[in-house]
């Protein structure tokens, strides 16, 4: 309601940020962000092509509060590519510690890719810190995930968006960060698709909403010509992996190209790119 009044009313556009800043924090925040707690990301995992997915889950509270005892615990949820839950795991997390999760130890090889998330409980000493409840602080875990090829070569990537909101120190119920439907977004990754620089690449897209979405990935030649297009439907909490293989890359001939992804369901839910090389190596990057 307040957003509506500020954004749609007679208030001049340039005054809106100032006006918003003058409001008490509780009025600026939506309902599920008015206490304190944590906000987590949804990540992509895969177990195909000799790749294992490793999540080194870091106790990030120790970095933010090095003077407090931040030993805590966590929980991890694994979903298949359609968003159906496969398994969960609970773990302890020491101060300045990291809990290492190998997806190959949790998921059988019937599943080759999917999504997962984890929640690190706000440590008791942090929850008691004077700034946290009064400042309505929500901790956003900007976790990093590692894809390990042939048990020796790694590629790290960080999460790009937000998924679940947990209140206080709760480890059970959560709500979605994106509770309302937002218009589908497009993204044009800066990444130049340059012939000879990779053998294949996978475009990874996640759905962080509770609605199905339809996304498309288009490979363009520099100048704008459309060379190849794929469309996919992604279930809530699910993901899609769109492969641009050798034969598709050959369509560029000697030209450089670029990708465009349409239909992204959340504001910052940009795709990630995983590249495969002739040597067997991989790399990954967020867009």
């Amino acid at each position, binding site marked *: 309601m307040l957003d509506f009044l500020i954004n749609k009313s007679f208030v001049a556009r340039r005054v809106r940020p100032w006006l918003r800043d003058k409001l008490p924090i509780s009025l600026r925040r939506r309902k599920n962000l008015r206490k304190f707690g944590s906000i987590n990301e949804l990540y992509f995992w895969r177990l195909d092509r000799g790749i294992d997915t490793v999540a080194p889950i870091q106790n990030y509270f120790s970095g933010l509060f090095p003077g407090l005892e931040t030993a805590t615990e966590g929980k991890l949820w694994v979903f298949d590519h359609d968003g159906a839950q496969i398994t969960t795991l609970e773990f302890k997390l020491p101060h300045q510690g990291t*809990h290492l999760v190998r997806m190959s130890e949790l998921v059988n090889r019937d599943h080759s890719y999917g999504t997962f998330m984890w929640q690190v409980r706000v440590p008791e000493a942090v929850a008691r810190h004077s700034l946290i409840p009064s400042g309505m602080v*929500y901790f956003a875990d*900007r976790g990093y995930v590692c894809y390990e090829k042939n048990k*020796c070569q*790694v*590629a790290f*990537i960080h999460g790009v968006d937000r998924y679940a909101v947990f209140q206080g120190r709760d480890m059970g119920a959560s709500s979605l960060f994106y509770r309302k439907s937002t218009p589908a977004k497009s993204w044009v990754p800066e990444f130049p698709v340059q012939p000879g620089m990779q053998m294949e690449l996978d475009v990874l897209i996640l759905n962080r909403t509770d609605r199905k979405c339809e996304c498309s990935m288009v490979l363009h030649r520099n100048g704008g010509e459309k060379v190849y297009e794929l469309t996919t439907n992604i279930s809530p909490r699910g993901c899609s992996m769109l492969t641009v293989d050798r034969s598709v890359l050959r369509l560029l001939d000697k030209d450089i190209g670029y990708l465009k992804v349409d239909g992204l369901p959340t504001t910052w839910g940009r795709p990630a790119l995983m590249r495969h090389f002739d040597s067997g190596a991989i790399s990954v990057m967020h867009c």
Partner: protein
Amino acid sequence: MSLLQGTIDYGILHLASAPIAIMAKEGLRTFAGVTGDDPSNTRNAGMSFVVLLSVFAESKLLGRIIVGTVGPCEHYFIDIDREVAEQGWQDIASFCVAHRVPSQYINEDRFVNIPVMHSHKDFTMYRTVVQYGVDSGALGSVTYETPPNFNMAGANPSFLSFSNKIYIHPDSDSYLVFLNYSVSPDYTKTSNASLMLYTLGGVCVSQLSITVPALDCACVRISDILPDGSENFFSFVAVSSGSALLPISIIVNRRLGGVSVEHSHPPQEYLFADWPVVKRIKTEAVNTISGR
């Protein structure tokens, strides 16, 4: 390629830019991927840019190379080693910044004296693809931009970073690279940073002081400072008072030629809170770790 001449407008220079460590000394080739497109596909339609490469050695600007132009629906990689070699700087260059300047502000080899119609806000998320590779091997890349107001004159910045992107393996070299750059002219502040490495169990196994000169970077090869052990994965915490740094993790598998490149987030990215609260949490953490 020619060099930019005359007076430089620092505001225009940093509308869309990214500082980059040149990793030739570690046996890596360095590239920068640029485009004229807005990644969000909503702003600046049809705009084209002049691509500049500011190259530094020992905190001194060697020159600003005019690499070319990049327009809408155009993406390409700049071979930074080749650009640097063409100027004869390959043995000394250690650091560079890739800039995209809207074409109307540059005529041939110098800035045009016209009113500036743009600010950085018009180009948020205009990031550069920073890519490293081993000769005849694979490539790894990451996208980032110069953080807004990075080490701006008059500010009192500090640096706190914590992440887990360290991987120890006989076939691999794991590096942490810290970039010390500023959007202000005449920046000279050397950063004295502390780096701590932790095991999975949270035990600090290594502590190191790092000096990062202004307009340069410092590269730490992690296996040089770790005691022998059986773990593959480690985490780190790094702090510095008085200047901000941009931390990059690079892991090179020499057998497969694989490269992993990723940046780390500043603490404010972990905190959904008002700025005064964020600032206080960060300041208290930096002071605690620095023993102040």
